[in-house]
């Protein structure tokens, strides 16, 4: 896939950030990753760049459990400002939780494309990134 993607990792787990970055890079070094440690950082970034199509991420891998503002709170805020954002962002929820309640909650939010359970291996990243291009 040729297109250069901008992928956002929203997760407070430093090791997960490291792993995600490495895997994405090893799949295709053209892709760029941008890291946020909590929901607030991420939403502030998106809000302040709402008109910059090139700065806004194409995909967001969003964790649920984060300090200050967690995944659900991020989504609520995102839905509020979505109409003002120039870009269509694909959001995946990633979590180590297999709690069916979380899964159902994610299903009911339109903006969420899918719910992925950690760990995310190389193949999973590959299939996601590939499917994006199609």
């Amino acid at each position, binding site marked *: 896939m040729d297109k250069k993607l901008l992928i956002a990792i929203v997760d407070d787990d430093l090791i997960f950030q490291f792993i995600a970055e490495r895997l994405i890079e090893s799949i295709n070094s053209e892709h760029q990753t941008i890291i946020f440690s909590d929901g607030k950082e991420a939403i502030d970034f998106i809000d302040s760049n709402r008109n910059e199509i090139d700065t806004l991420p194409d995909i967001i891998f969003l964790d649920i459990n984060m300090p200050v503002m967690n995944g659900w709170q991020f989504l609520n805020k995102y839905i509020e400002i979505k109409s003002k954002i120039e870009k269509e962002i694909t959001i995946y929820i990633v979590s180590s939780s297999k*709690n069916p309640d979380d899964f159902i909650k994610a299903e009911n939010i339109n903006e969420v494309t899918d719910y992925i359970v950690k*760990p995310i291996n*190389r193949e999973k990243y590959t299939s996601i990134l590939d499917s994006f291009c199609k």
Partner: protein
Amino acid sequence: MNLMKFHLLMNLQNRKKLEILSAIIVLISIISFLGYLFKFSFYSILPYPWSLPIQINSSINLVLFCILLHFIVNKKNNLFIKYCSILIIVNGLLNLLYIIHLNSGILNSIFANPILDGVLIGRYTNGRPCVASILSFTLMGFSFLGIRSKNKIFNQIAQATLHLVTLISILTILGLSDHIPSLDQLYFFSNFSIYGAFMLMLLSIMAAAVQPNLGFAATFIGSKIGHEISRSLFPKILFSVLIVGYLKILIARSALINEASANALLQTSYILIALFIIYFTKESLNKIDDKRKEAESKIVLANNSLEKRIMERTNHLTQQNKQLEEFAYVVSHNFRAPVSNLQSLIDIYKEEKDIKIKDLLLDKFEITINNLDTTLNDLLNGISVKNDSKKEKQHLLFNSSFLTAVESFQGDIIKSGALITSDFSKALGIEYSALYLESIIQNLLSNALKYSSPLRTAKIHFESHIINDEVVLTVSDNGLGIDLEEHGKDIFGFNKVFHKHPDAKGVGLFLVKAQVEGMGGTISVESKVDAGTKFKIIF
């Protein structure tokens, strides 16, 4: 087995009474019988000296019936009871026939006994048993057969028959006690000994008690109020009736008062008796009622205390349940993440060829494993608090624990210039676990220092109160505050952090809550963002 039913119906107490009474009757009967043979004359010293002594027929019958009663009550010798009863019945019928002067050689030979006749005729006017006696013993024989039967109707007939015998014996006693000289024509009572009649009455009543659920036995034998009242009333009524009857006879004999006045007197005395009996009844019933009410109130009290204990137990279990749920949640959330990281790291490590990168990965391994280790320890600390039964209470002073905590954070306090104040005047100390109190104060102080606002000097205040007999500790600060709407339910959770802070691990408050609740207290928080926070602990 039919006899079983009596064994069950008669309780032990009544059975003992019965056995004792029948033993006495047997004794008296045997003495009387011996009295005939050896010509004792002790009857003159007894209350009714004009009365005949107990006749042979009566004494033999009495002894036999007592033996039968003993066997019935102890469910033994079924056949013996049957045949003995039949023998008695036959004897009775033969006697009856003899009295009706059906002359028969056989009858004569059975009953004409020269030795006995010689003994008897020397003493008494008429050696044969009287009609009342024969009738009573024959009827008793029938009733003993009826008691043995499995047929309920026969049981009831037997009981009625026994009551009839009792009635006859009472009539006899009353009739004889009047000292009406016995005439040859009065065949019904004439040869009955008053003592014999009395024994017979006792025996018939005892036999009726063997079936305590039938006839009049059911009126007197039992434990309910009705039974108690009956047992209480009947002797009184009986006594009154007998006294008045006796008085009437005395009056009639002495001819002091004419009959009409005597009647009026009698009627008045009956009214008086009725009043007394009503009074006794009222007293008895009221006493029973009081006893019942007392028992009821005891039950209500016991019930209330039981309900209270159930509620406490339910609350305890509910809380334990909640803790288990929290624990399960904590485990799944806080362990899965690092474990999944390790899995990913291993995959990456296997594919990596660059040694420098491999070294870097090993560092990441180490970080993750340390993370896991710390989480495990923090969690175990929290759990051990919940289950620790060795929370020994000592008498502690707030001030000393407070000063210890301040000392250990001296460095941070000086660096930040925070103002730490305290006021423990309203509640100087508490009976508590020393370890936990120190841990609680330290954690709250550490929290307040960590989350102080950079915009102003930190002011942290510790205060103790007594509210509603409970010791309360409040810790207030003017720091960053917490958005309780957003994070309210997570505040005491494990590893929950709300501010970016390098030292923020989110376990301090988790531990404090575990410790406070482990000692049976509660902790709550009030806070306003960017204004301050106030923790309140009720010990």
